[in-house]
């Protein structure tokens, strides 16, 4: 739908307003603000411990912010919790992969279709015709998603037995099954070789078109992000230090300093940059 990536609708899909997050003495996020427009691919980059995953946790409802708030289509999301936010239309993947390991690949996606599986109890128990038709549709939908993610051959395998790359794609399939409007991808290319990263980039493009999605993505691989994203924000020590088009961000002196200057040093820095362990 939204072919022009920087089209500004009346109300942004998601607004992050001055969100802070404090864990004991560590300020993981410091007054971070962002706005996501419908349909864009928005990248979040920054050195390790910059607070990227913490921001994901706040947006997806896993971590309540210590200050500030998030707005979904203009309405505050406080108190909804992870499942409430998912039902609004926010789905996510995890940096360290959280599949339902004892379930099959197909069942993982079926769990993601939870919202679409509502059925009257008695009909479900007795296996009524309506219930079986609905089950058939769910199975079909699950297989469609698995086919899109090239996992259809592995449908009956236990998710815990999958190799790494397949697990990453399964997590995306499971997130898509929840019919999100906004997809949060936490380092989807971690541990992938250049060819796989290329496939992933194409996949994200396909997904966005297929589902008219907005995508917020954390990734360390900067060239991939430059190609993929419409806009980028850069976090460093919990603060947003840059925001804009990839070209603008690339030349921002503060970004260059964050990546080449003060961070990356083996001393770890004195301002608490070693924290923010990605939880």
């Amino acid at each position: 739908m939204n072919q022009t990536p920087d089209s500004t609708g009346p109300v942004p899909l998601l607004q992050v307003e001055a969100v802070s997050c404090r864990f004991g003495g560590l300020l993981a996020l410091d007054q971070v603000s962002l706005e996501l427009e419908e349909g864009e691919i928005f990248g979040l980059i920054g050195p390790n411990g910059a607070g990227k995953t913490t921001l994901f946790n706040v947006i997806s409802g896993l971590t309540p912010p210590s200050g500030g708030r998030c707005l979904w289509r203009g309405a505050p999301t406080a108190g909804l919790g992870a499942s409430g936010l998912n039902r609004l239309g926010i789905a996510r993947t995890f940096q360290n992969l959280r599949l339902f390991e004892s379930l099959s690949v197909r069942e993982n996606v079926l769990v993601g279709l939870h919202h679409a599986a509502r059925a009257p109890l008695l009909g479900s128990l007795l296996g009524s015709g309506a219930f079986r038709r609905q089950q058939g549709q769910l199975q079909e939908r699950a297989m469609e998603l698995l086919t899109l993610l090239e996992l259809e051959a592995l449908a009956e395998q236990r998710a815990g037995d999958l190799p790494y790359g397949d697990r990453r794609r399964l997590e995306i399939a499971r997130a898509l099954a929840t019919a999100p409007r906004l997809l949060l991808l936490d380092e989807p290319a971690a541990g992938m070789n250049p060819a796989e990263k290329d496939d992933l980039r194409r996949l994200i493009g396909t997904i966005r078109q297929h589902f008219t999605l907005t995508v917020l993505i954390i990734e360390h691989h900067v060239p991939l992000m430059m190609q993929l994203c419409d806009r980028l924000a850069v976090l460093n020590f919990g603060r947003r230090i840059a925001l804009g088009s990839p070209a603008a961000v690339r030349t921002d002196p503060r970004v260059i300093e964050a990546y080449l200057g003060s961070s990356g040093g083996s001393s770890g820095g004195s301002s608490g940059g070693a924290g923010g362990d990605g939880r």
Partner: protein
Amino acid sequence: MDAALLEQMLLGALLALSVYLPLRCGQLSLATPGFYAVGGYVAALLSTGVPAFAGSGATSPLPALLAEMVLGGALAGLIALAIGGPVLRLRGIYLAIATIALVEILRVLNLNLPFTGGAMGIFGIPQPFAHAEGYVLFTLALLALACWLCQRLEALRLGRAMAAIRDDELAAACVGIDTPRTKLIAFVASAVLAGVTGALAAHFFNSWNARAGSFDASITTLAFVVFGGSRLWPGPVLGGLVLTALPELLRPVGDLRLILFGAVILLGPLFFPQGLVTAERLHWLAARLGRGRHRGRQAPQAP
């Protein structure tokens, strides 16, 4: 095997299923004997104190038994509903400890309430069935119903949500599953099953006292599930049947039986850490039984 022992085994299997239900979504609750005692007291009080339930005094009508089971299950379920909200915020061993505390609170209440008969409890509970065989058939039907529900759960949205929570509660919340609600449903279902079983058991044992719901019983019912296997419903059923029968079958060896019983409980998990019943063993069994007949269980079904 005499019918009285068979009846106790079936009751054991029902209690094991009650422990299994919360475990299906990863919740280790030891509250089953507490709800079992509550259900038993409901039946005992009604059938000894209320003329409509008491029948002739020695024998009570079957509809009264059914009504007591419904009421016993309902009261247990209501207690579970009331305390489930806060209690289920606890995880793992902390939930187990909280549910043990619940069992103890209910036990002390049952000992000291003015109408529960103190330490002696309530006796002379009328019999809806003339013989133990009647109980066996009735309980078998109840167990079959419970097993069928557990089996159906597998195909249902609720069952999948429970399995997802067991594997990863946080990820389950992130795919839109209302995790507190799902855990509460499992906990209440477990309580209802235990309460219904208690109402039936009170009639069968003819008397009921606070010992029905003790810490010992919590551990015993947990052993059913650990021994039989906690992943699939046939596991707890098998565990409940075997471990209820064992102390009785070992009676001829005298005091040694307690040692042997302890050894079985110890060695079972040692050699079968997943419990006796696992998916692999069931598939193997199905393959042996169905040799010749083609079984398409493993084959992916075309939608």
